């Protein structure tokens, strides 16, 4: 639940999602669900010359199970808040 809440707070930010097939997609985070499926708007593939497979896609749904990394904007990370939240979760509450 922690990461679900965390990603919900990042809605509206610009993120880069790197998939397990090496494709990296940049776009505005539109929504996240319980499986950490991600919807991005205004997307573009990071290396369009190598990966022209999504040239006519501007909005997409990415299945949570194929996400390798989500690159976040530095200002989107509140380290103190995350520290507290992970400790709280580790204590079981």
């Amino acid at each position, binding site marked *: 639940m922690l990461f679900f809440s965390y990603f919900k707070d990042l809605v509206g930010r610009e993120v880069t999602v790197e*998939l*397990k*097939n*090496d*494709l990296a*997609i940049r776009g505005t985070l*539109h*929504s*996240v*669900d319980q499986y950490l*499926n991600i*919807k991005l*708007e205004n*997307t573009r593939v990071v290396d369009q010359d*190598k*990966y*022209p*497979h*999504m*040239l*006519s*896609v*501007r*909005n*997409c*749904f*990415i*299945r949570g*199970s*194929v996400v390798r990394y989500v690159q976040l904007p530095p200002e989107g990370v509140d380290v103190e808040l995350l520290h507290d939240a992970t400790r709280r979760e580790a204590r079981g509450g």
Partner: protein
Amino acid sequence: MSDGPGLESLVDQTISVITNDGRNIVGILKGFDQATNIILDESHERVYSTKEGVQQLVLGLYIIRGDNISVVGELDEDLDSNLDLKNLRAHPLKPVIH
């Protein structure tokens, strides 16, 4: 693509699916469920290669199991009609390695 998460907003729209084995299937989204299983109508596969332009294979009505889906993209018809698929060359996408 408004609404919350899920694929509701894409129903009856043309979508481009990238599967875990690196295939690209384009069709009209007719249905989906919790596990991202999807039903595609009037679908075709776009086969990318470096030797020749993009080949389009007609598939028809297709159901794709959610486990095998990487990305579901909303196909922008204007952008798509401006693509010169016959002269577009690229390596096929790599399969997903978990």
